[in-house]
């Protein structure tokens, strides 16, 4: 049974429908990416799961029960974390405070401390900068912080929206390395990415969305090998 | 040509007759309505409320003695909330919608000045009892008369007392509105006449509540006495803050605040030795005006306090109006105006005889709050007791 499953989900902003009948599955332990051109509805998929936009139909099931109509804090409490795109951190709060906010629902101080140690073990840089204001860090560090904050509730699954957006190639590598590291420690990851090539490299499986509909699906290597996918989404397949 | 002139004469005659009959527009049940907007709430509520008392008292009394020219008098009192714009609207309403037969005056110089434009336009006369600023009567108005002493004389006694105790420097402050400005102007003139140096003059906005810096400024200017052209709230704030800051003057005089019965009540000990001005005091044995004793007794019986000058002035002006209507023999606006302009009568408030501008030359009193009581201390001929000046310092009270 998949950990997260979307069956024929339709959604939109107000009366404008963005997702049409989208279906996808994420199994426990996998890294699954969702790729596609701009406006394909990739980020919208996350937003409908979190309940931020108008849900029009279909089924969203996490760990055997529906997420439809659930409040964001309940979704997080059930073990599904979401890291929005754009390196969103609380800029006027320290790194430590940001991480504490990630564990807002946890009242057990010992568990919060353990979660923080865990995050610091994956992102040692955050430990060095614990007292620094988040807004004063580099873009890459802010992205790491946002991911680390998503880990604070020790979720079973994390939804990462465009983690490499606007980062230098070196930092893009680092972000993907950290994503793999998180997955190796048992986290299920669903990834939305513009940088399709890198995403497919680290993913077990992937979905291609186009204009809010399912277009292709398959394993990372399968899609990387698909000539149509290569020309349309991988910049002509120059690099593999 | 001739025909035209005849036509015109007829039209004029109709208009005049029409106006005449409109002026005698009594209600079916033989009532005359006397209307006014008086501050029953707001910063002027204290003094104006006491005028309302006198109005109610007079209405009952005049009806008991047969009304005005045989008509029962009904008072229609609205509340202008101490606001000029509201007062203007209410007087427009009273005249045009309610079609009252006679007007009652509003309270405060500022509001009276504004309302004077309204009643002038509709040619309805009244005797002002809550306005003491002479500029109101310097605009060739024909339908407004005055009964009280003018603002310029409010601080006359205080400045004379300052001279008596050897004060050489005073500061004159006041709220930035018509009446306090006039009172300040008068105080300055009296100081000049008596050779006292005015070291500081300042007006503050009507909403001012913090006088800390101003009090320091007055001390810095070297004033020995403080002449404050103030109402209740500002005078109270000044005295409280003088005490808080331990700022001492040999003499402090306020135009309106100390004359209100609850001033010493609310301020307690802090109000002691303060000088104030009174148009009139309920002292029949000293002032000796006709009917005073009876009026004071009736007022006290009904309202459980002695009338203050605001009450006295309103009552006096109503007696003047009553006499003028009797003299005019009609409620006609023009005839009433004529009667008010020529009448010479002494009421409970003193003599009423106006000059060409419509102003009465009323003589006021200066009192001091001593042991919680207002005691007349100036002029000498009316003094109940000798002024206790200079004021003792706060630290010695």
């Amino acid at each position, binding site marked *: 049974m998949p950990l997260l499953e979307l069956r024929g989900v339709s959604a939109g902003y107000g009366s404008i429908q963005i997702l049409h009948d989208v279906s996808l599955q994420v199994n426990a332990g996998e890294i699954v990416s969702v790729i596609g051109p701009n406006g394909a509805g990739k980020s919208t998929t996350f937003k409908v799961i979190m309940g*931020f936009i108008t849900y029009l139909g279909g089924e969203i099931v996490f760990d055997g029960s529906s997420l439809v109509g659930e409040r964001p804090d309940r979704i997080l409490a059930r073990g599904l974390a979401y890291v929005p795109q754009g390196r969103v951190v609380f800029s006027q709060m320290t790194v430590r405070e940001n991480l504490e906010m990630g564990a807002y629902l946890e009242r057990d101080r010992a568990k919060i401390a353990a979660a923080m140690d865990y995050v610091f073990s994956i992102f040692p840089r955050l430990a060095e900068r614990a007292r620094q204001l988040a807004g004063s860090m580099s873009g890459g560090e802010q992205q790491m912080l946002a991911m680390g904050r998503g880990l604070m509730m020790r979720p079973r699954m994390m939804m990462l929206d465009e983690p490499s957006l606007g980062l230098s190639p070196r930092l893009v590598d680092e972000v993907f390395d950290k994503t793999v590291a998180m997955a190796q420690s048992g986290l299920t990851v669903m990834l939305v990415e513009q940088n399709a090539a890198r995403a497919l490299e680290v993913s077990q499986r992937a979905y291609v969305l186009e204009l809010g509909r399912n277009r292709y699906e398959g394993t990372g290597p399968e899609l990387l090998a698909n000539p149509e996918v290569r020309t349309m989404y991988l910049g002509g397949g120059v690099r593999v | 040509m001739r025909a035209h002139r005849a036509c015109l004469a007829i039209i004029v005659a109709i208009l005049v007759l029409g106006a005449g009959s409109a002026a005698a527009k009594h209600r079916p049940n033989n009532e005359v309505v006397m209307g006014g907007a008086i501050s029953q*709430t707001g910063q002027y509520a204290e003094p104006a409320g006491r005028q309302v008392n006198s109005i109610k008292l007079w209405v009952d009394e005049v009806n008991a003695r047969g009304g005005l020219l045989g008509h029962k008098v009904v008072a229609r009192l609205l509340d202008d909330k101490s606001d000029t714009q509201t007062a203007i609207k209410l007087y427009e309403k009273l005249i045009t919608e309610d079609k009252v037969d006679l007007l009652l005056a509003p309270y405060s110089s500022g509001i009276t000045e504004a309302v004077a434009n309204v009643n002038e336009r509709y040619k309805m006369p009244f005797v002002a009892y809550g306005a003491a600023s002479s500029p109101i009567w310097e605009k060739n108005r024909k339908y407004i008369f005055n009964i009280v002493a003018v603002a310029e004389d409010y601080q006359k006694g205080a400045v004379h007392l300052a001279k008596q105790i050897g004060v050489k420097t005073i500061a004159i402050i006041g709220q930035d509105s018509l009446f306090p400005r006039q009172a300040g102007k008068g105080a300055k003139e009296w100081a000049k006449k008596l050779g006292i140096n005015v070291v500081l003059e300042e007006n503050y906005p009507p909403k001012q*509540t913090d006088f800390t810096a101003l009090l320091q400024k007055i001390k810095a200017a070297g004033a020995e006495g403080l002449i404050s052209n103030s109402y209740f709230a500002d005078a*109270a704030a000044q005295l409280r803050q003088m005490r808080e800051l331990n700022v001492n003057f040999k003499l402090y005089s306020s135009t309106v605040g100390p004359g209100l019965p609850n001033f010493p009540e609310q*301020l307690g000990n802090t109000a002691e030795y303060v000088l104030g001005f009174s148009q009139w005091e309920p002292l029949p044995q000293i002032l000796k005006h006709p009917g005073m004793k009876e009026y004071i007794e009736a007022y006290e019986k009904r309202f459980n306090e002695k009338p203050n000058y605001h009450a006295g002035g309103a009552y006096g002006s109503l007696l003047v109006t009553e006499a003028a209507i009797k003299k005019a023999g009609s409620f006609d606006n023009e005839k009433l105006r004529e009667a008010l302009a020529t009448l010479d009568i002494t009421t409970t408030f003193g003599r009423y005889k106006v000059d060409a501008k419509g102003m009465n030359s009323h003589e006021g009193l200066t009192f001091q709050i001593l042991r919680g009581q207002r005691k007349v201390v100036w002029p000498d001929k009316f003094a109940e007791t000798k002024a206790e000046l200079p004021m003792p310092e706060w630290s010695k009270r």
Partner: protein
Amino acid sequence: MEKSDVRSLYLLAAFLVCAYSLPFLIGIQFGTVRADEQWFAYLATVVFAGILQGGVYAMFAVGLTLIFGVMRIINAAHGEMVMMGAYLTWVAFFYLGVDPLLALVFTLPIAFLLGVALQKVLLNAVVGQPELTALLVTFGLGLTMIYVAELIFTTDFRTIPYAPQTVQVTRTIAVGQNKLISFVMAVSISAAVYLFLKFSRLGKAIRATALNAEVAMVCGINVQRIYLVTTGIAVALAVAGGALVSIQFGFNPETGVVYTLQAFAIVILGGRGHYVGALIGGLMLAVLENLVSLMIPNGTAAVELAAYGLMIFVLLIRPGGLMGVKEA
């Protein structure tokens, strides 16, 4: 700090030096400034009184900046809430015989609940709407509050005689005990709110919501509840401010307007959402007002002019305010 930021700070410093010297220069022109010891005593008294007043102003500003920071709602009814606090205290004092400061024990919880109700009934509808919508709604609320207060209490000035004794702070500086008490209360309450926001779990969640409501939601913070708590605290702060006003000055239903404007000026001066900035802004504004009043002839009338002049120039030079940072 960026270069342009540093430059605007220098420019602001230069402007403030001018603004504070101006009353002295005008005073020297008119001879109201003297160089003797006695005059310095008056100056010291006025500056000290300004500092005390500034602490109370700062508390108004903290309440205003809190609601704005979290919900982007400009609360034009803040002064009316101060006025409501003054009346609550007055009623407690005159009708129930409760000490004005002790009254806070029950007026603050009442105020908090009123704030929660206000948020549920009115403000939730305008969160996320354009700022003008919220401004108009709170402006209307303020007018309604004035009208209701006039109906209940009339427009008469009220005051509570409380601790009027003189305290001799130094040999030359004397001040009313009520002013000293008000300052201590205002600063302690503001500090308590500051510490709460800085260190408590809920306080941090309020700050997080102010910084980014969507991410706060993602963190599991119930943003709707944060809005309720925020408005509750802001109204409680205003009511506490009202209690302090009532023991120092006369007040009537229209008094609030003055306090709203002062709070605006301080928030702009100190920087939106900045609490230390609010304290500094409050002190600066009150001291400047007193200096103008002390030294400029007929300066009492010029005080408001000085306050708004200060506000406008600070806005022009440094839109983020004294301690403000550029918004992300």
